[in-house]
């Protein structure tokens, strides 16, 4: 089983906030950006569902529309929420990485350890 199937996809809200941290974007540009850095393709229903949720909580805001679409940008509250979320994730990843590095020598492969 691939690790992608074992672990669920990252939360779309986190991906959207991370993308907007790089600068304001409209929906399609946001989708392409997320696809590039997270290898996750978000559909239009998910992207705008997330944006509506985040906008309601004041984490992102819509700018003046251009060419029939609104660019969105991160607000200060959004930046703060993203920072908190990322630091939590970082704690998990750094702990996991350091423990994995320390125990690499002691690990056996699955087949060798399996009962006969």
């Amino acid at each position, binding site marked *: 089983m691939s690790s992608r199937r074992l672990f669920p996809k990252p939360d779309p809200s986190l991906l959207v906030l991370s993308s907007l941290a790089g*600068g304001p974007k409209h929906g399609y540009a946001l989708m392409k950006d997320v696809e590039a850095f997270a290898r996750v393709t978000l*559909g*239009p229903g998910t992207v*705008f*569902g997330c944006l*509506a949720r985040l906008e309601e909580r004041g984490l992102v805001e819509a*700018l003046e529309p251009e060419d*029939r679409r609104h660019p969105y940008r991160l607000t200060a509250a959004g930046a703060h929420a993203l920072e908190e979320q990322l630091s939590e994730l970082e704690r998990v990843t750094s702990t996991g990485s350091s423990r994995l590095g320390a125990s690499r020598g002691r690990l056996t492969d699955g087949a060798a350890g399996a009962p006969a």
Partner: protein
Amino acid sequence: MTESGEATNVTGPVEATNVTGPEGSRGPTAAVPLHARCALAAYPRWWRERYGPDQERFLEDLVKDRRPLRRAVTDLVVGALRVRLRPVGMPQTVIAWRDRTRASIAWGTVPAFAGLVLVSVISQHSFRDSIGGTSPRGPSLSTGGRVAADAMSGLQWASLAVLVLLLTGWALVGGFADRVPKGRARRRWWRLTLAPLAAAVVEIGLQLLRNVLMPVVKGTTTAVVHGRPIMTLTYVSGRHPLAASVVSIAWDAVAVAGLLSVFAVVLAARSADLRVSDLRGGVRLAQLMAIVMLLSALASIAWGIGVTHQPSLPPAVLNGSAVTIRGWTGIQTSISASWPLVSTGLVAIAIVSGWGALSARRSYQAARALALSAK
């Protein structure tokens, strides 16, 4: 947003390259296929007004980049369902909540029509006769059979209640004529509202025509089970059997159109400029309908469990006629096999109807509170 509620730009000035994406997506717009437009139309009106152009532009960019639309359309349909279930970002306006109340009333009542069709399909199989019914002339039933027969009676009463509620709803919508502007819009509104009546008149006309085309009674025959006569069948034949068959097909087609005309009434209700207080009756109707559908679902489960516990009955014998019918056991078996499907359908309808009623009540309360605070 800051604590004071003021939005702050932390990303610096907007740059055109950033906004349009890495490759830029400006230029002539691409045509969005019909099925994708239908998916967009599945969103509520307030959403379409706010995010509709953005989503449409998103789809145009997908088409322009020659990316497959199938996943995007599925995602839109799921997204629309989510927004309808939980209206995140809905503006706190009377109109938005009034529209949501109206849509919820439709979700609470219209699915009952499908329930009506399901129950009528079962009834057409003559379930009561297929297991002998509770008639003293029929063969004796087990406890399961009696439960099934009683549950079927309950289902038929529930169908009657659904019909009465739907007619009440129709009458309610009919009372909103003065909420539609005079002229073309009013005429369209009347056409939509009277569509079920037109279908009913055509149905009666076709029925009369069929009776005229096949007027001659040829004879009667009696179905006998275990030596007891349980059912008398009357056969009619006439001078124009082919024409009568054509009329029968037309009758079925108009019956389907009549069922679909409920959507015309929903459209009529949507086009009226209703006040919040106008929706009170509809909310109560949706609540009653949800209760009836819940009882129907429970009755259908009882019926299904009961009928599977009724031992098979012997095949019927027809006296005095060459006409044959299927064995009672065959009919019973086919109904027994299909009960989980029918019950699942009724349970699903009860869930949708219940959700619609709950949502209608909450939305109505929100709309009323907003209307009061606006005064």
